[in-house]
């Protein structure tokens, strides 16, 4: 085998892709279709309660297109970090959708579900043996209390559980939380290709066409024994040396040392070469094995939030917003003295420092601002009650020098307070040393349709 072609439809299952670009990819006879379905970017709620990153209809629409290609062209499909966080619940939800489509369409396919939830008992034992360490300088050491507070904990699997499933020649893999490049690395390495190049191509393609300029969705990656080539399948996009180098260092804390389960990808001596107007060739990546550890991700419930959104145009109100925020806090406490210390309330002031917060250096006063009230409390009911009092204060508080006495803001929605549901916080982001890369990632095999 001299080369492998990997088709990546998009950086995130459910985000959408142009079908004509995907079909162009299929015409190139790819060996595998690989699609990431997860990211911690949209918050800890995905781990916390298993809610999905995209609406069910979006997943189904894309799976329908992907499974047709699997069935008609006999190309395997690997989905990783299913549903957003890659919890067992999310793996089963995606698995259920795949099954339903196979039954409806009359496709007979084999599948493997790989699970990534880690039992707290396992983590506790490892913690006692001192085999758990913070992942990053700003992560506090894990305690038994935080472990017990976490609702769900997943771990990022490396390539080995995928290699296991690949050995069984399945048509579809639905994996729980995985290190993003792992499914691609597993496929290429198991076919005998260089491990550094395989990890590097996986790192770039897991985001789909984000590495192209302008960014697009569908990408084709071709790996050979001493290099790989990246090509966007949208006519409007190209890959450049800069766009590929940039993506190599994207969302990582080190630009050229990328640690993962089982080793570090070192791209410091890499060469990015433009081979024609649209394609870039990459070579020179190195892989250095390290003692095996897997990254744990966990979240705890911290309460419930409610919000109100309002616009302010009166310049007298805009300069008084700090005073009004204090009055809002005071008004909530005056009405609910028993809730002192039991809620958090802040005003986000867009047009002032809403996006940069304490990093804002430009304090020019805007013509118009948006105020978003955020309240966190133990129950949804309390959060909404406090938010209501804060909203009333924002609307009617008699700030110093007020002359427009009918209201301080323009509201846009009724209901005026919007309950936001559960709020989670990441409380586990740690490395756990393991001996066997497959031990904690059980695989279930199914025959579908």
């Amino acid at each position, binding site marked *: 085998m001299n080369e492998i072609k990997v088709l990546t439809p998009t950086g995130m299952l459910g985000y959408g892709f142009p079908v004509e670009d995907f079909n162009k990819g299929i015409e190139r006879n790819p060996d595998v279709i690989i699609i990431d379905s997860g990211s911690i*970017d949209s918050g800890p709620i995905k781990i916390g309660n298993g809610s999905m990153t995209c609406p069910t209809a979006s997943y189904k629409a894309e799976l329908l297109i992907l499974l047709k290609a699997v069935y008609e062209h006999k190309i395997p499909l690997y989905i990783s970090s299913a549903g957003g966080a890659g919890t067992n619940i999310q793996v089963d939800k995606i698995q259920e959708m795949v099954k339903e489509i196979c039954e409806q369409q009359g496709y007979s396919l084999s599948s493997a579900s790989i699970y990534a939830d880690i039992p707290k008992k396992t983590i506790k034992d490892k913690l006692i043996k001192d085999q758990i360490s913070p992942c990053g300088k700003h992560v506090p050491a894990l305690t038994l209390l935080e472990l017990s507070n976490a609702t769900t904990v997943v771990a990022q699997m490396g390539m080995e559980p995928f290699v296991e499933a690949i050995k069984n020649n399945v048509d579809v893999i639905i994996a729980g939380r995985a290190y993003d490049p792992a499914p691609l690395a597993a496929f290429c390495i198991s076919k005998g290709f260089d491990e550094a190049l395989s990890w590097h191509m996986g790192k770039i393609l897991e985001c789909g066409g984000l590495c192209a300029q302008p960014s697009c969705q569908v990408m084709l990656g071709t790996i050979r024994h001493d290099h790989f080539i990246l090509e966007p399948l949208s006519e409007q996009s190209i890959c450049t040396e*800069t766009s590929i180098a940039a993506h190599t*260092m994207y969302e990582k*804390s080190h630009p050229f040392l990328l640690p993962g389960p089982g080793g570090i990808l070192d791209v*410091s001596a890499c060469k990015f070469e433009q081979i024609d107007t649209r394609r870039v060739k990459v070579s020179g990546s190195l892989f250095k094995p390290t003692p095996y550890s897997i990254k744990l991700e966990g979240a705890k419930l911290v309460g419930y939030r409610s919000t109100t959104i309002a616009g302010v145009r009166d310049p007298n109100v805009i300069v008084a917003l700090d005073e009004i925020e204090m009055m809002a806090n005071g008004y909530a406490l005056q009405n609910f003295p028993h809730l002192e210390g039991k809620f958090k309330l802040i005003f986000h002031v867009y047009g002032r420092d809403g*996006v*940069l917060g304490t990093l804002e250096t430009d304090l020019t006063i805007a013509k118009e601002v948006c105020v978003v009230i955020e309240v966190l409390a133990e129950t949804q009911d309390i959060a909404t009650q406090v938010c209501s009092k804060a909203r009333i204060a924002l609307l009617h508080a008699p700030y110093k020098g007020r002359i427009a006495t009918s209201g301080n803001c323009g509201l846009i929605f009724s209901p005026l307070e919007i309950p936001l549901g559960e*709020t989670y916080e990441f409380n586990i982001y740690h490395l756990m040393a393991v001996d066997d890369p497959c031990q904690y990632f059980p695989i279930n095999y199914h025959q579908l349709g």
Partner: protein
Amino acid sequence: MTKMKKVNLMDLTSIVRSKNASPFEITFDILFKSKIIYDEIKKNNAINPIILADLFGVGKEKILDVIYFDAANAVKFNMPRTVPHASFGEIDMHSAQQHVPLQKLTLAMED
């Protein structure tokens, strides 16, 4: 002596961006337009913790790991997030807008 001139970072770069590197850390990427520009920046260590701390109005200890990456003509540095990702008080879920202060950075370059 080489004559120097002040140049805005935006005139020297093709990419300036920020992004979560973990739930607790923001990473910033600066990619220069050419190897010549990058080499001069690197030689003078023009992007360093002192200049960045001053620019962002934070203590020097908040500017972590300023690392030059030759193969990409790039510099990367990290900062701790002000609140853990998506917890109460979140203002930029992806940390995708925190690069903006860099747009004001001016550097002394050889004329």
